[in-house]
């Protein structure tokens, strides 16, 4: 059997980040990517938080092909026929940028090139069929008829775990722990984007939508401004979708949402350039599998490393960080000549000491909180109803502002159900 030191399965951000670190330190590394090129199969909503990862490979982020630094954050609560948007425009978000909108086809191809420059080998269009096991240890991979051995395999195959699960490295993904995302990339001239979202030239906006966008199901809508396009999509919990027994198909949510009078002007005049869909791990820390073992480490989505915290949605920074720490652990194992679980154990230790598992731990309760039935139905509607009351002048005498506000708060926010929600929310 032909053999290399390190095989990375999956040329997304986690796999490429690991390969970059390994190749940079002189390890022999081969990345196998199923898509025709890195980024071909990947779907992101559109935003990468760079602050957490700036310290890893600092030379990379200065020249990375990001789209726009996010200078405006918008959260829109969509009720029936009324939406309320909170908007934060902050100099401190943009200088220095804490997050950028990204287009994966561009970002991942670029990172694959960087891996190549470091001496790593990236093989696109190569589907790995199996992780090879021998005496309980991962010893390589099979792709078609070829079996290639490796000291260590970085399993960064993505959310579906098509290889990790049969090899017994992680559980089969279940609907309850996953959401489904649908996205369109809609081309608009840069000037139109900047006018529409009140942006300075080059700056970007991120807008999240809760409520009627998913027709009350767990999930939401997102909109990120790229250089000359916007990424517009809907994420919906798989179990909510199935349990609901609705007539509507999940992909129709996006079509219907785009037709709403509140959304239509945002996409007016645009041309749909891409359509994509993807599963998203949302199980939180409780569903993170064992991250390493004899001859392998798990990274990125394959390890369940993503975090939907309602107003911030993260995954790519975790992917890059896990790839970085995987590379560090493998290099230590290489030094010691021990690629057993004991030799690779520093990977999980490093992740536990880092923001990755710490932030997931902090958010342990989020998946449970997200299942609150009122979160995507009652509250978005109630917020808009409250503001509607406040802004309404009827035909007769108008009650005082505070009276109007209190009436709405008592009606929609002070009852047993909402207080129970608030009790759970204290842990967020």
């Amino acid at each position: 059997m032909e053999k290399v030191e390190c095989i990375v399965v999956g040329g997304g951000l986690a796999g490429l980040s690991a390969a970059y670190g390994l190749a940079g330190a002189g390890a022999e590394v081969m990345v196998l990517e199923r898509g025709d090129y890195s980024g071909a199969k990947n779907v992101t909503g559109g935003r990468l938080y760079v602050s957490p990862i700036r310290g890893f490979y600092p030379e990379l982020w200065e020249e990375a092909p990001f789209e726009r630094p996010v200078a405006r954050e918008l959260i829109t609560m969509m009720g029936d026929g009324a939406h309320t948007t909170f908007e934060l425009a902050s100099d401190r978000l943009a200088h220095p940028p804490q997050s950028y909108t990204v287009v994966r086809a561009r970002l991942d191809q670029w990172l694959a090139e960087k891996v190549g420059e470091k001496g790593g080998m990236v093989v696109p269009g190569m589907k790995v069929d199996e992780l090879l096991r021998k005496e309980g240890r991962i010893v390589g991979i099979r792709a078609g008829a070829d079996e290639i051995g490796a000291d260590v395999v970085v399993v960064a195959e993505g959310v579906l775990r098509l290889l990790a699960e049969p090899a017994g490295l992680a559980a089969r993904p279940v609907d309850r722990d996953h959401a489904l995302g649908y996205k369109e990339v809609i081309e608009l001239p840069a000037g139109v984007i900047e006018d529409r979202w009140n942006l300075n030239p080059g700056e970007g906006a991120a807008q999240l939508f809760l409520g009627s966008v998913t027709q009350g199901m767990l999930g939401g809508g997102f909109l990120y401004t790229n250089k000359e396009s916007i990424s517009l999509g809907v994420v919906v919990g798989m179990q909510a979708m199935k349990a609901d027994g609705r007539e509507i198909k999940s992909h129709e949510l996006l079509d219907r949402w785009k037709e709403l009078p509140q959304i239509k002007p945002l996409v007016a005049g645009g041309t749909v350039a891409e359509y994509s869909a993807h599963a998203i791990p949302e199980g939180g820390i409780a569903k993170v599998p064992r991250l390493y073992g004899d001859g392998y480490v798990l990274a990125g989505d394959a390890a369940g490393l993503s975090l939907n915290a309602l107003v911030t949605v993260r995954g790519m920074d975790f992917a890059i960080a896990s790839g970085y720490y995987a590379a560090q652990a493998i290099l230590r194992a290489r030094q010691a000549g021990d690629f057993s679980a004991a030799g690779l154990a520093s990977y999980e230790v490093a992740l536990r000491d880092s923001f990755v598992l710490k932030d997931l731990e902090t958010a342990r309760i989020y998946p449970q909180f997200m299942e609150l039935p009122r979160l995507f139905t009652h509250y978005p509607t109630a917020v808009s109803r409250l503001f509607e009351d406040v802004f309404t002048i009827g035909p007769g005498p108008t009650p005082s502002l505070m009276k109007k506000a209190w009436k709405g708060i008592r009606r929609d926010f002070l009852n047993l159900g909402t207080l129970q929600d608030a009790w759970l929310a204290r842990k967020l």
Partner: protein
Amino acid sequence: MDIVVCVKTNPDPQMVRIRNREPVLEAVPYKLGDLDKNALEAAIQVRDAVGGKVVAVTVAETNRKIKETVKEALAMGADEAVIVDDPAAMTLDQAAVATVIAAAVKKLPACDLLLFGEGSSDNYTGQVPSRVAEKLGVPQVGYARKVEAAEGAVRCERSMDEMIETLELPLPAAVTVVSEINEPRIPSLMHIMKAGSKPTQVWTLADIGVDAAALAPKQEVVSNLAEEQDRKHVLFEGAAAEQAAAFVDALVKEGVVGR
């Protein structure tokens, strides 16, 4: 038989989108031309049948990821690769490309058969093969749907509109192939891994004795616009059978069917 296959790096046509009638090449991956793969496959088959060597020859162009495509050719089964990479030869017209390729082929120790795809995946001018053959003074045939080694010769079947022509050319000769000639192999991982260690030579214009001044373009691309298509926007209504009948009538009227 020593076979030279001339290959070109093209933007993946499936990934090129049109904006304002112009191709958007940003973030588009580059790959070996489709017909170039047919030519390579044909070369590999001839080599495997009669022995010899397959050398892939290409000319670097601005922004095109030449090394990866050359690696693709080596992974498919070429034995060696030659890249002409010179800052003075980054944007060439077809005549200049032919000058460069002919000079590179002359520098090779041996070349019995030159194979090309009928046209490139991007501009498909189909000019380079004939120009190279002319410069080298070798016979050339196009539209080959079969290429076989014969005694001191190459036997080709040409795919003509309503007939198949079989020709034998004395070596050295140049042949351009069409897609029906074969199904190009998809390299296995093992072959991709081994491709990295196959010899690749990078030559400059000086190495092949070409003066950059001789490459000055004789033509200039003024614009490169996608054809504008007016859709007819005809909507058929009524029962399914009526719609189908009206649809067929319309197709006949347009001359699309029933000629």
